[in-house]
């Protein structure tokens, strides 16, 4: 019995390891290419990190740098040259600005509304809630075209507003917070009212602190979705490099002048992709919770 169980366990690991290798394949390729020299990439040699021989890089010299500056190890060169050629920090900064603005506005709009729907009694509450339920069905990417037409008419294409505005309302956030607030005991709110707190103070000083766990999960859900989003920025940002979000940056690295040199290109892509992956690995549990949030019933 014991032996049989071990064999069973062994088989399972064998299958899962093959699966894990297939899943990791592009990650391996990405990191490996960002470390190796062009020759090693083209001849598919050198394993994960290549030989790392110090050499002079011709493309770098052609760009106008001195030969001395251009002599270094491949991994140094790839990452250095990536930063020389594209304003990567700017793209990352834009990513932070856009995702944070979206999240903050979403909370500012959703939290009071969720509180009203959960804890205040007023005429038309059921109607508002059914409106929320209906809007849950509408995928924002699906209505991207009419939204684009509206933004274009308002002259907002190629602005931060275009990146942020369509996402300011998260009906999912309203729904989620409302469900959460339903579980908060009424006594807590009544006690706050007795203490003379107004409704505004209750929302931000009583309800917000109780909602931190749900809010954190929602934050991860929202930030990951918008950090990775490519479709919407691609629609509304046409050429202004200053407004590029990380995915638009990635697209530019691939299609740009440097497409004859894969190392620096992959180095840029790794740089832009890594922050989120590192955050994920550090706080896995929270991330998985947040992203599968849509699975909560």
């Amino acid at each position, binding site marked *: 019995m014991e032996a049989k169980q071990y064999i069973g366990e062994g088989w399972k690991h064998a299958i899962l390891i093959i699966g894990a290798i297939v899943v990791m*394949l592009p990650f391996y390729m990405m990191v490996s290419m960002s470390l190796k020299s062009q020759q090693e990439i083209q001849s598919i040699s050198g394993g994960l990190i290549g030989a790392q021989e110090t050499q002079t890089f011709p493309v770098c010299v052609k760009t106008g740098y001195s030969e001395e500056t251009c002599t270094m190890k491949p991994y140094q060169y790839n990452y250095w040259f990536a930063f020389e050629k594209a304003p990567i920090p700017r793209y990352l900064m834009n990513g932070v600005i856009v995702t944070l603005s979206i999240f903050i506005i979403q909370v500012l709009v959703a939290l009071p509304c969720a509180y009203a729907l959960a804890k205040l009694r007023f005429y038309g509450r059921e109607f508002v809630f059914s409106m929320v339920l209906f809007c849950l069905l509408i995928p924002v990417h699906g209505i991207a075209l009419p939204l684009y037409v509206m933004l274009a008419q308002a002259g907002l294409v190629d602005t931060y507003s275009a990146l942020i505005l369509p996402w300011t309302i998260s009906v999912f956030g309203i729904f989620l917070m409302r469900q959460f607030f339903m579980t908060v005991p009424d006594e807590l709110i009544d006690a706050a009212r007795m203490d003379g707190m107004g409704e505004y103070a209750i929302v931000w000083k009583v309800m917000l602190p109780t909602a931190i766990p749900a809010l954190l999960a929602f934050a991860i859900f929202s930030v990951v979705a918008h950090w990775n989003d*490519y479709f919407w920025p691609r629609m509304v940002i046409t050429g202004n490099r200053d407004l590029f979000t990380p995915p638009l940056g990635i697209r530019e690295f691939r299609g740009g002048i440097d497409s004859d040199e894969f190392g620096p290109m992959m180095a840029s892509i790794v740089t832009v992709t890594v922050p989120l992956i590192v955050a994920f690995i550090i706080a896995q549990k929270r991330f998985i919770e947040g992203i599968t949030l849509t699975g909560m*019933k």
Partner: protein
Amino acid sequence: MHNSKAHIWFIAPAIILMIIILIFPLFLAGGISFTDYNLGNKTFEWVGLENYDKMFNRKTYVKMIWATATYVIVVVPISVVLGLCAAMLLNSLRFGADIYKTIFFLPVMATLLAMAIAWEFTLHPTLGIVNSFLANGCGGVREFILGFHWLPWVDSQESWYAVACANNMDFPYWLKQKNTAIWTVCFIGIWQAFGFNMVLYLAGLTSIPRELYQAAEMDGAKSTWEQFKLVTWPMLGPTTLFVVTITTIRTFQVFDTIEILTKGGPSKTTYVMMYAIFEKAIQQNLTSIGAAITVVFIGFILVLTFFQRYVIEKRVHY
């Protein structure tokens, strides 16, 4: 009970934004789809159903429907089944489950666009490790396994692998060939989606009470398969329904991989709806056609979700 008017200030911003950002665009898309309006035009004419007529009769749009349908029909079932299998395997492991979970969830987290480019190089005919792995395996175990020589009806001289080896390592140009591009894109879709489904199934599995398995065993369901049929699968009903719906909706919206890897080609075999909307309406400025595609797209999504709600109410209550 409170008697302030605070609620108006609480709900007004949300209502206004919902109307402007979510509800009005539905009508706008519907309206534009009956006109010949293009962005930048001063005037427009009502053209009735002309745009829809084009959509269902022109070859391009028929191919669009085909590509979208193929993508959804391939990616949804496979990623759901893979997610379920992975969840069940992980659930029965004694150790190491967390590591696999992290690895399988990575594609869900990582920026899809970056990963699409990474896949492009991985599958590249001359630079990629996939084709070099295949080429190095000619005549060996890899050829035997991946060429399906172990199946009794496959001739070991005629399999796709053997033929490619014989023809000077002529392995597929995965993303550039008409007969492989859509399947390669589907593969990337499955690669990206199954970890998400796995996590939802893992949550579903932990909510099944242990006693049910003991009861099933007493009723004579001894083998793992019988227990799966009797307990696990029925208990996962609501999870499955949810997983299928959400995967379908996400799958319908595929865009990143198509735009960066195939641009809808070769010969429109990967011309999915979201890409069609982008190409027609934004790049070619044919707003009205794009609006018609949008309306059909939204229609699909609404039908799907209503279907899900209907099934939930009718069937999945035990």
